[in-house]
């Protein structure tokens, strides 16, 4: 069952990667990247247990934190940039 879950996570990561490369807007790419990061946390946790690594859960914990902070930072940048665009002109969003 652990192997089946790991394979499912890998398939999901592949699909999210396709959406990351394919996404029409930058928001789609960021959503897929966030999903990819969460799946990476799960993959480290399950795969580390299956391969009996040493301190994999610390790595997974740190990766979850970093993923959240990175997503929030990029979203804040997007929002800030769009606000300044609205002040300059309403039709200047790329």
């Amino acid at each position, binding site marked *: 069952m*652990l192997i089946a879950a790991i*394979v499912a996570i890998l398939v999901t990561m592949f699909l999210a990667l396709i*959406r990351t490369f394919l996404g029409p807007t930058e*928001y789609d790419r*960021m959503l897929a990247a966030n999903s990819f990061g969460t799946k990476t946390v799960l993959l480290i946790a399950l795969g580390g*247990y299956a391969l009996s690594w040493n301190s994999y*859960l610390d790595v997974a914990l740190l990766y979850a934190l970093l993923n959240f902070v990175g997503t929030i930072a990029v*979203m804040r940048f997007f929002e800030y940039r769009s606000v300044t665009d609205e002040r300059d002109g309403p039709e200047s969003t790329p």
Partner: protein
Amino acid sequence: MTAILELLSGVCLLLGGVLCITGGVGLLRMPDFFSRVHAAGVTETLAAPLLLIGLLLQMELSLDSVKVVMILILVLSTNPTATHALTRATLHGGQQPLVFDDDESTGGEGTSKP
């Protein structure tokens, strides 16, 4: 007792894996950004705890179990927050949800217009 735990863990892992793939397919095939958020965010919030609970039921009780619970709480609290921030930034960025309307065609099966 061990057999019951194994069975419960297997069910959790299988359900989590199925939800994972469902979210991935929805992320790839939905026509609009907001429906993609729905497909990815909602399933992710349920799939990650299911997979982690399945892992928790397999390992013996030690410090690692506490770490798994910490990851679970972290994922469960930060994931909806990140999705909320993402959607809010998208709405402020000028993206509109794709609405099928007869009066004004918004591009059919394409993405929503900014």
